[in-house]
């Protein structure tokens, strides 16, 4: 069994924090622009640590770690893989993030039904 790659672990932890907190922060920021209630926005940030978004973010961070720890990966692979992976991870996390208990993708689905 190989030893843990400390550098990759730190990267993965940062990656996890970004994809689990940033989408919620974004949504809350949009809410903030409309509601003007700072306290409520800060309180609702805790929504980010609900499952399944939390679990999925953790899973993506684990995959991120596995790829990052592979030292033999070529430069072009890293250059293409990481941006795409990060973007997909962020999108997945954003769609799973809940707004008052309703996942964003459900809200989008409902909106699509109405407008398209």
């Amino acid at each position: 069994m190989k030893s843990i790659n400390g550098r990759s672990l730190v990267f993965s932890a940062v990656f996890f924090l970004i994809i689990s907190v940033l989408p919620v922060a974004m949504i809350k920021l949009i809410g903030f622009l409309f509601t003007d209630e700072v306290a409520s926005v800060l309180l609702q940030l805790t929504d980010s640590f609900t499952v399944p978004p939390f679990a999925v973010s953790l899973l993506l961070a684990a995959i991120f770690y596995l790829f990052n720890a592979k030292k033999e990966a070529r430069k072009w692979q890293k250059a293409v893989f990481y941006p795409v992976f990060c973007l997909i991870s962020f999108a997945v996390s954003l769609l799973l993030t809940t707004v008052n208990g309703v996942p964003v993708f459900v809200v989008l689905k409902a909106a699509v039904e109405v407008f398209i």
Partner: protein
Amino acid sequence: MKKAALIIISLVLLFSLFSGCAVNSGISGFSEKGESFFAGFGKCEIKIPDYEPLYIAGYRNGYEITGVLDPLYSRAVALSVGGKTIVAVAVDCVGLVSGTVNDIKREMKKNPLLSEVEITVSATHTHAGIDTMGLWGKVAEDGKSPAFMEAVKASAVAAAVAAASDMREGSLYFSKASVKELLYDSRMPKAYDENVYQIRFEPSDGVAGFRIINLGAHAEALRSENTLASPDYPAHTGKYIFEKTGDEYIYFAGALGGLIYTKMQKDANGVELAPTENVKKTGERIGAALLSVTEERKLSPTLSFATVSVTLPIENNTFVALRALGVLENEFVYNGAGKLGVSAKSRLSLLRIGEVTAALVPGELFPELAYGLPEFTEFYPVNGRVKNPKTFKEILNTDEFLVFGLTDDEIGYIVPPNDFLLHESSPYLEEARDGYGRNHYEETNSLSPHTAGLIAKALEELAASPFMSKRG
């Protein structure tokens, strides 16, 4: 390292999969037989704050109240047989969604008097009440006043505690009276229960008791232009009965969907009364009908209760949007059901007091789903090939039963699937008009066409449960 990572990934996947699943809890309840009934009554006025905008619920957005015509109350009855107790609460408001009901129940359970009893919380569905669902504030804004919601919760708890503290031995009597001439059904088919029901408690100590009143009609005798808070006609029915007998009352709205309400009352010259007079006369006529009853049936001292959690798919985009905006506080689960994948987690219960059964339904049930259509009714539903679920009458195998609507949740109208029609381009936003020229307003305030079938299925399970099949 790879193995460890794989194990972690598998665990995380399993966790994430199961965390999204909705698990229906099983049926719970009790069935008891005793020597006599013990019952109690409690009520508590809902304090209306005077420093926040308060919206009249039931008609249109942003319509503020300007005063109080009659005080709003939470009322509760506690019924007990053989040591098993149920406390049923009715709040003078348009509806209480599951999130609010669960908050109220949690508070109640903290009280030692209520910690071991079954509790149900209903709304009287007054359309002269204050917004308790959030739907009648300014458009897309939460119309609930936090201070008023706290007052509602506190009064419901206080009424339940008062009822549980007031237990006295006595007898229960069941009766009904026709109020057919007072009722009107605004949507085809013309099908509704023409009776008002009462279960009268007569304490053995000779003091005044209380009456459980049940009628399937919207409490909107004050009509849509009213800006004064009131429980509507049930308050005047109760007042009339109290003045004549000293009995208190609790009112449960019946199967009133699609859309049953009371007709405008007229004076001696045939002129319609003003709404504030209409509400009084309507209430008094219902009270008089109840007091005119000559035949009462004494109920055997048995008490059965069965309750089950139901998950009902939500296909109404507006409901989802309002939930996301934090306006509606119904309990939601993501379980992949229906077109949008989300469901409302609600509750259905059956209560049998002596020989009388009541179905406790979480919304506004169309009467035809409960009683079927009257004989010789000519009606062409829009989905003629779709079969409606079994009626409550068929499931409960009796002609005489009660429906306590808007209990433990308000999920909107429960519409028969064979007449469920959505607007083609704006489903759930605009009301559809069918080929017969009939409007389908109620569908815009419903979860989906699947609700009626799921409710009927859950009712069958409750009726077949050991709590109900076993006679006390």
